[in-house]
């Protein structure tokens, strides 16, 4: 209990710092890949603090409240994850959080944010099956949805779930809002006509979205971590290494590809989930 409380507290207070640093590193590496010098490592923090100091503008009085709920529920979801709770519950809570963000964009009732909201929703529909299949894969192998128990398995789960891992890696691009699947909004210095789902949010509300993404990215990497960690003490290093490599691959992908159409993003995500997830699960069921 104390262990899980500690990790939740760590997540809530240290999480955004780590998440912000990752984001800063991301921008730096991206710049280097493009032959630029890039912003300082702490740039994401500068951005967020600046946004907090700006005037608050809005199209209507309640749109920002949805984003506030989004932040709260993302933190809640992450806490559940780091507490070692039920992984299905984590997924459901994350869905709820994302829905708040979509509703905020709908609420603003502006053309750009509405399109962003629709696209975000489409992305959610695209990745939801694979995310659920990931949890199901964990359950089929370890007989538990509990994250602590999943982490205590005999061998790294990726050995049993290579297909599901690849499928999850595929939709991770969507969740991290990286090209080619950054349909609803892209990140930092990307060139984009208008900022998709975040179009109508500014100042402190935009800062909240940013912070929420730091939190979110952290436990998304936690999912990757789960694939590589097992009972052996010290295996967390392997997990950490896997997360770093995964994130690096995502950055490369981000810089090497252009945004695809929603049709491709959606159908490919479902096909990947159906093909990789199904095959992997089928083999597991047959092995039993």
């Amino acid at each position, binding site marked *: 209990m104390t262990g899980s409380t500690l990790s939740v507290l760590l997540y809530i207070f240290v999480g955004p710092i780590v998440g912000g640093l990752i984001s800063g590193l991301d*921008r730096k590496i991206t*710049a280097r890949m*493009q*032959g*630029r*010098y*890039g*912003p*300082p490592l702490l*740039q994401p*923090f*500068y*951005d967020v*603090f*600046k946004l907090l*100091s*700006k*005037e*608050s*503008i809005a199209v*209507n*009085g*309640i749109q920002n409240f949805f984003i506030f709920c989004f932040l709260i529920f993302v933190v809640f979801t992450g806490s559940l994850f780091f507490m070692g709770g039920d992984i299905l519950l984590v997924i459901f809570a994350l869905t709820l959080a994302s829905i708040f963000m979509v509703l905020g964009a709908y609420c603003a009732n502006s053309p750009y944010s509405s399109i962003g909201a629709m696209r975000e929703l489409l992305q959610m529909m695209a990745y939801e099956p694979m995310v659920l299949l990931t949890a199901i894969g964990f359950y089929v192998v370890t007989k538990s949805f509990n994250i602590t128990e999943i982490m205590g398995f005999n061998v790294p789960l990726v050995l049993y779930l290579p297909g599901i891992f690849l499928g999850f890696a595929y939709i991770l691009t969507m969740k991290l809002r990286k090209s080619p699947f950054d349909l609803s909004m892209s990140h*930092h*210095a990307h*060139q*984009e*006509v*208008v*900022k998709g789902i*975040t*179009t*109508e*949010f*500014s*100042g402190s509300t*935009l800062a909240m979205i940013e912070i929420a993404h730091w939190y979110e990215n952290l436990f998304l990497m936690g999912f990757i971590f789960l694939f590589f960690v097992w009972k052996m003490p010290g295996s967390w290093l392997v997990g950490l290494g896997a997360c770093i490599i995964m994130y690096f691959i995502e950055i490369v992908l981000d810089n090497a590809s252009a945004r695809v159409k929603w049709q491709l993003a959606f159908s490919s995500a479902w096909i990947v989930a159906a093909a990789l997830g199904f095959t992997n699960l089928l083999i597991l069921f047959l092995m039993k």
Partner: protein
Amino acid sequence: MSFLKKSPWIIHYDGTSCNGCDIEVLACLTPLYDVERFGVVNTGNPKHADILLITGSVNEQNKDVVWQIFNQMANPKVVVAVGICATSGGIFAECYNVMGGVDKIIPVDVYVPGCAARPESIIDGVVKALDILEEKRVALARRRRKARKARPVSLTNLF
């Protein structure tokens, strides 16, 4: 400590420009000049931006657009007029449809002349704008503190 100066986000609006200045603005983002070193991001959205960078003159068609984009930006904000057309109308000043420089419609804080303005001078203009931005931030913070004291919390402003 001011973070505003470390993270100026820009919206670039093209008035009636010949696209010369626009190319130079975008050149600032390229590896050679790399303004992201200073935290500059080209947002494309007035609601996120701190600096409105306008190239080209203002005409009858786009005067409302310029005004609305300016109005949709959150305070503190500054306007940088890039290129001679944006500062005064340039060689198009006498055209029947051209109203003149950007300052005919909205207050301009920094003028960057040139035809086309060079990336170095654009960056210099933005850096100058940062100081003005900072001044405005301090003033705004003072105003907000005062206003907060004066205004009681009310439930009436729902919607």
